[in-house]
């Protein structure tokens, strides 16, 4: 049993955890929910010994301590699984497994991996480097490692982004088994209420650094939403904007396009999208969707084939030429690739819209404050913005005449309210005639906001699925490599082979 007493963790003036007391009992599954910045991850890091609380105490297996270190936490059987697996991508599987464990020879380690893999229905090649595994496999490897170290309290920080529905099912079955049969304590940090409702014996709701409530079954979903977001959470997100018939010329057209990134190449592909269409890309990490997006905007090369915009061929997908032709790319790594961390909001606007030097203040107000509700001061640096405000700033930097928006994970790290605002804006853009091609590791997001879903598997387009057919089961099966003919029926065969018919909608 683990008892947290009055845990405070302050970062400067920010109170990430503000007096949290909590008891975790063995054999139970807890879901920890709350919006972004509610302090969930901080609390779990305190519990795993990865950060020291400012004040408070922890009672773990009868022992009272002020803080835990990774070594101490491990000695008491606490193990944490991060959203981005905290491993060593350049090193082989067996070394990743062994690092931090008591001394063993390579042969012994391989035997242990084999044994655990057999028990948990996994498969790993000990000498393969971890960078060639999918995120799901890396998480599973971490889980095996923690179990091998004797972890009896498992903390999983948003474990289901980037894995298929089937992998998720397996993971949840495994967690259920560990809790029920081996009396492990499981803490599941999640953004998805359905997961919490489905799995948890108790739902812990955090808000603004405090534990506001602990719910036990039967759950009242409306009350849970109310607790998490306060009153801001009313109203469902809208789906996709209507699609008008807009003539024969596609906005985007790929003919036998071969794309080549630093790690792999893909193609030849044929694809086209209409003005106003929302195209969602689905696929496990490294299946090709990242390269597809980066190839479309000219960040990765296209050695063969043609890319046409509004019927006009764009030779050799040059980034600058494409950009002036209306292609706009918004990367998931906002601070690293899209913003200048040390420049202020105003400077960003000045750089992007150089013609507005005279009426800067008025322009800034209309562009950022009125359209995007970006309430931060114009002299704030980009690095000081929250994830939601960074994304608002990025959206406000898109020129109005951008006709093809390419977005990597548009709502990465955003809470439900901000996410809804982002999608409302993107839908407005599409209504005005822009075409959106986006990728998200969150399959529900892809399904909710796409007219058509392009599913990638094994570095190729596996199938293009219309909205009517795109369900979690269908797309999930395609992502996992099921044959499109089996999943979609005979009609889809032609579609998948050419990677989408011309014009998109029929």
């Amino acid at each position, binding site marked *: 049993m683990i008892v947290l007493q009055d845990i405070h963790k302050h970062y400067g003036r920010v109170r990430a955890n503000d007096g949290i007391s909590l008891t975790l009992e063995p054999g139970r599954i807890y879901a920890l929910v709350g919006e972004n910045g509610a302090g969930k991850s901080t609390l779990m*890091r305190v519990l*795993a010994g*990865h*950060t*020291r609380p400012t004040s408070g105490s922890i009672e773990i297996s009868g022992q009272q301590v002020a803080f835990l*270190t*990774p*070594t101490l936490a*491990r000695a008491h059987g606490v193990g*944490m699984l*991060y959203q981005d697996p*905290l*491993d*060593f*991508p*350049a*090193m082989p599987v067996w*070394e990743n497994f*062994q*690092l*931090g464990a008591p*001394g063993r020879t390579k042969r012994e380690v391989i035997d242990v991996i084999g044994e655990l893999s057999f028990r948990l229905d996994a498969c790993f090649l000990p000498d393969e480097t971890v960078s060639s595994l999918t995120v799901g496999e890396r998480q599973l490897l971490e889980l095996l490692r923690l179990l091998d170290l004797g972890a009896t309290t498992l903390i999983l920080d948003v474990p289901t982004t980037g894995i298929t529905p089937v992998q998720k099912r397996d993971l949840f079955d495994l967690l259920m088994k560990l809790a029920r049969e081996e009396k492990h304590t499981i803490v599941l940090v999640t953004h998805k209420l359905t997961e919490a409702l489905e799995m948890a014996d108790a739902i812990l709701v955090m808000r603004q650094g405090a534990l506001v409530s602990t719910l036990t079954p039967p759950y009242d979903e409306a009350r849970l939403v109310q607790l998490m977001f306060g009153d801001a959470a009313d109203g469902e997100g809208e789906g996709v904007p209507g699609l008008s018939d807009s003539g024969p010329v596609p906005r985007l057209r790929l003919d036998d396009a071969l794309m*080549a990134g*630093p790690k792999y*190449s893909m193609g030849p592909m044929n694809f086209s999208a209409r003005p106003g269409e929302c195209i969602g890309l689905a696929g496990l990490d490294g299946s090709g969707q990242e390269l597809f997006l980066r190839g479309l905007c000219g960040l990765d*090369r296209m*050695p063969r084939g043609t890319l046409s915009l509004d019927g006009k061929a764009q030779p050799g997908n040059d980034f600058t030429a494409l950009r002036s032709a209306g292609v706009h790319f918004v990367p998931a790594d906002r601070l690293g690739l899209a913003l200048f961390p040390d420049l202020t909001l105003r400077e960003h606007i000045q750089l992007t819209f150089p013609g507005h030097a005279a009426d800067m203040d008025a322009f800034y107000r209309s562009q950022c404050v009125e359209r995007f509700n970006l309430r931060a001061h114009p002299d704030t640096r980009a690095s000081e913005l929250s994830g939601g405000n960074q994304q608002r700033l990025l959206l406000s930097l898109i020129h109005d005449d951008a006709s093809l928006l390419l977005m990597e994970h548009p709502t990465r790290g955003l809470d439900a309210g901000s996410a809804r605002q982002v999608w409302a804006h993107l839908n407005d853009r599409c209504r005005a005639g822009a075409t959106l091609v986006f990728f998200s590791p969150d399959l529900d997001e892809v399904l909710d906001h796409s007219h058509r879903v392009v599913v990638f598997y094994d570095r190729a387009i596996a199938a293009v699925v219309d909205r009517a057919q795109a369900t979690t089961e269908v797309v999930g099966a395609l992502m996992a490599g099921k044959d499109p003919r089996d999943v979609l029926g005979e009609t889809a065969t032609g579609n998948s082979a050419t990677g989408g018919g011309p014009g998109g909608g029929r």
Partner: protein
Amino acid sequence: MTDTFALTLAGILMAGAPLVLATLGETLTEKAGIINLSLDGSILLAAMAAFAVSVTFDSPWLGVLCGMGVGAAIAGVLGVIGIYLGQSQLAVGFILTLLARDLAYFLGHSFSRQPGPDLGLWTIPGIGTIPFIGPIFGSQSPVIHLSLAAIFLCWWWMYRTEGGMRLRAVGESPRAAFGRGIRVRLVRLYYCLAGGALVGMAGAAYSLAVKPGWGRPQGCEGAGWIVLAIVIFGGWNPVRAALGAFFFAALQVSGIYLQEVFPSIPAPVFQVAPFPIMILTLLAVNMGRVGWVQDMVRRNPVLKRLSQSWSIEAPAALGQDFDPRKGL
């Protein structure tokens, strides 16, 4: 003819020995995620200290130990300031290299142009008579044996021991290493010191064997900078880095021979030539990063297999600061 060839090889081994030692040292340090730019000054100061001690105590091996100590001490300053006080490793390294160089010339002034002991030759009985091997290894400076042993030891330690695994782990992802209970900053400091000691040994190898004696210039100036390049050339792999060091030594040694063959070409050309050739070689080794080469490699299965074993990635956390108190 074979004897000339064997003697040339012996010359390359000799000229390459200190380069190899310093390259291995810097590879160890960088593999742990720390960049030590103080190499050039460290080598010089260690060379001076090693020579001064062996003159004073008439014991060249004590000089080697002292050189190693000096190298480790300079690396220790960098380690404490860079790792524990969180300052820029690059800035501190640069300043240290200048400081160590000036200190070496200043403190070593009284030992300048003096006769002194050197490490001499090791004669291995029974080898001298074997053709080809004999002239190379039969009677040679011990720094060659040291450098060859160091290559094997470094490789073995890095890839075959638990400690080496931890070394690579802290250079790859200090956060993940910390999460697994590894004392990241301590491990980094250890390899900073160990790397510095090897660099110091390289300095001693210069003043006690390769270019015996002390003076201004000593003759090893600039070696530290080329070593920094060779570490990258070697892809942070001790064996490949050592090959790179010998390759550079071979260029230098062959320059001396070629000078005799082509007397019409001015001598400075041969002295300078190794540097641009190094850059060209680096370019050739890293061709895999160029787009059209990648396409060609993908189409050719033989090249593809080759490129996989030849890919070069820097330690992911090279030069990055890590403070466990900030947490993960």
